[in-house]
């Protein structure tokens, strides 16, 4: 859509929404939020960007193919269970390591897992949206 207003406002909006989505992701463990919701918010923001500036702009911004992003997400999630092998506990056990940021320990397998969820949601929905947009 070739609207000046949109093209001005949207990048700002998208950035805020993206940051917000990450915030929602990280706070999920103790307050409403989490990977799904964060991912949905991020995907919505990217959809908005796509409406404003076209699919090519989104693809350039993403750098990677959205499916690769999704795949990376699933990979993170699968891998978050691997460190448990080295700690002699079953697959996917939640392991929390020491350094804490803002009272949230960030180096932890459930965090990686949730990040994976986030990326999967973002990647899949964006992939579908972009493909639909480019469908003739």
């Amino acid at each position: 859509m070739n609207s000046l207003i949109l093209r001005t406002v949207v990048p700002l909006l998208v950035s805020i929404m993206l940051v917000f989505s990450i915030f929602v992701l990280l706070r999920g463990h103790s307050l409403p939020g989490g990977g799904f919701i964060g991912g949905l918010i991020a995907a919505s923001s990217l959809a908005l960007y796509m409406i404003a500036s076209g699919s090519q702009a989104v693809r350039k911004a993403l750098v990677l193919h959205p499916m690769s992003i999704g795949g990376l997400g699933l990979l993170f999630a699968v891998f978050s269970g691997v460190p448990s092998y080295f700690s002699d506990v079953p697959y996917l056990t939640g392991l929390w390591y020491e350094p804490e940021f803002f009272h949230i320990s960030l180096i932890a397998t459930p965090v990686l897992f949730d990040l994976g969820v986030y990326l999967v949601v973002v990647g899949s929905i964006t992939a579908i949206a972009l493909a639909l947009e480019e469908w003739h």
Partner: protein
Amino acid sequence: MIAIAVLSGFVLAVFAPFVHRLTKPLSGWVLAALPAAIFFYFVQMMPQIAHGETVRAAWDWVPSFGVTLSFYVDGLSLIFALLISGIGAFIVAYAGGYLKGHKDHGRFMGFILAFMGSMLGLVLADNLITLFVFWELTSITSFLLIGFNHDKPRSRRAAIQALVVTGGGGLALLGGLLLLGVAGGSFELSELLASGSIAENPYYLPIFLLVLAGAFTKSAQVPFHFWLPNAMEAPTPVSAYLHSATMVKAGVYLLARMNPILGGTDIWELVLPVFGGITLLTGTLLGLRQTDVKQILAYTTVASLGLLVMLIGIGTDVAITAAVLYLISHALFKGGLFMVAGSIDHSTGTRETVRLSGLGKVMPLTALAGLLAGLSMMGIWPFFGFIAKEVIYEATLHHDPRMWITAVAIIGNSLMLAAAALVGLRPFFGKLLQTPKEPHEGSPSLWLGALTLGVLGVVFGMMSHFSGEYLVAPMASAIGGRDIHTALHLWPEVSLPLALSGVTIFLGFIWFWQIDHLRSLLYAATQRLWGPDHGSDQFLAALVRVSKNLTGLLQTGRLNFYITFTLTMLALTLGIPVIAYGLLPTSIVLPDVALHIYGVFGLTVVGALALLFARSRLQAILSMGVTGFSVALIFLIFGAPDLAFTQFMVETLSVVIIALVLLRLPVDTYDRRDFLPSLRDAGLAISIGVAFTSIMMAIGAEPLDLTLTEYFAANSYLEAHGRNIVNVILVDFRALDTLGEIAVVLVAGLAALALIKVRDGILTSPDANRVTREDEA
């Protein structure tokens, strides 16, 4: 060692095509070496068996199911094994000459050898299941052999028919054998034979009927006889081997083998002779109707099998001896005659008896073979066939109702004599007629086997004492389950059987002399008759028709139907127990919550009602959205904000997407449904809804086990570092579920991409101009 004898056939069968290619002109003789070797192996067992010993060898095959690969050599199986391997050797050599130049010659040899292995396994098997395995293998190899000339529709039809009939009988046999194993307490024949008759067992009748079904189908008894003449579509070596000397005798073998266990009862002595007798007469009469040599031979084989069944049914010592004699002599002369017929066909190009005459001058050796075999079949002294006939009459005369049985035997035998003369004598005497091809004597492979068999027919007859002691007695004793020694006399005593033989010969020559009249008479009589052959075609066609109709009932191809049917099943599955167990709620207890929450419940119901009465699809979808939002509100109110948020987002997205898609589709904006279907759908919906509600209320009335809830609440913060129990469950307690779910999301994305990018087989790449066409498959 015995196992090697049996299984070597299969091994060589696999390599046969290669051997054939290597030894082209002599491949028949080369490959015949194996059957010959097997034959001599069994010959050296003869003295041992003649003295009443038996040999058994066993290996575990599937011990958990009681199946052993066990083989048992006694008089019965030894003689059969000798016939199979001996005649087999000649057949293999014969096939080498008969099929010379044929494209699939090597394959054919392989099939024949595989068949030989199967047949050997069948007669030597001791374990019931092992026997069945080989039984089915003979059906399979027979299928492949009959259909060998598969470019001809008649061959294909005959092969399928044979497979279906013998296969169907085989399945019945399986049931019978399994029952027998249970009833008799063992799956080993040797043990069953030792324990004797199971006539008193409650399972006797079903076992008898099932085994009979198997035996009758395999041995072409009326009404299952029709497949055998049709099987003549196969190349002559096949007819000579399978459909005269060996495979069709498998049923007879089975009955003989089962005689000590199942025989001797009233029903045995009634059913077998009756069916056998009918088969004898039917076979000979229908045979004389034919003019094709192979067809005549086929029908007389049917008749001979009937005669054998009849004799086994009679079951006295004499009858069994007669059966043994006839079985051996029949194998010799029938195999010989088939080979002669094939030689004639091969050299003259025709098989019509009316066109064959005077060939004795040009094919002297073949003529001699035919003569010898024919005379044995006619039962002329001093051939083996004569001795057989004598004992047959002795048997029929001493068993009630002697008049009928003897009469049947006389008629049958005399008709067969006519047939024998027609096939074995007439083509060779008289004036030489014009034939499509110039007749000539074939290579040794073509006449050596027939000649040898014919000679044996005389030799065995003349060496009656030897035959009696080494061939007949052991086999008869094995069949009878008791020692049977009947002395065989080459020089017949003056007695009633001799007189009857004379009558038979006399009658036979009358039939032969008047053959043309007889033939036209028979033809006229049977012209309009409906026979089982036609019946089997009708059966198959009907089966296909019924299958199509029945299958079409459920497999309508319409998704509408499928969904309605499924939901009907759901309604039944839920509704029946609900009503049967009386789960319908008798009282409704309203939950104790604030008024505004009732408002939310109300909103949900409003949404559902709006959906029902929506006047366009768009309205319907929006109404569904309203219901979805209300559910999200319920989540929010009852303390699950995460769920609520996700529900809001997903609901919005789905409504938007569905609306967008629907707007692009060329469908009606209204959902038109007639009154009756609407009623049906309403009924389904209401019953399912009521059923689910009742069930849930009933479950709700039971105390809820809160073990899991308490555990999660207790451990969420302490162990899992999180206060948001929902998220903790998602990413920690039940993380594996989430892992699976995000995989679903990703895969959904993949599938959507695939749908968008490849349409109708064409890949459209977003960043390229080229279009790649899919391969057709």
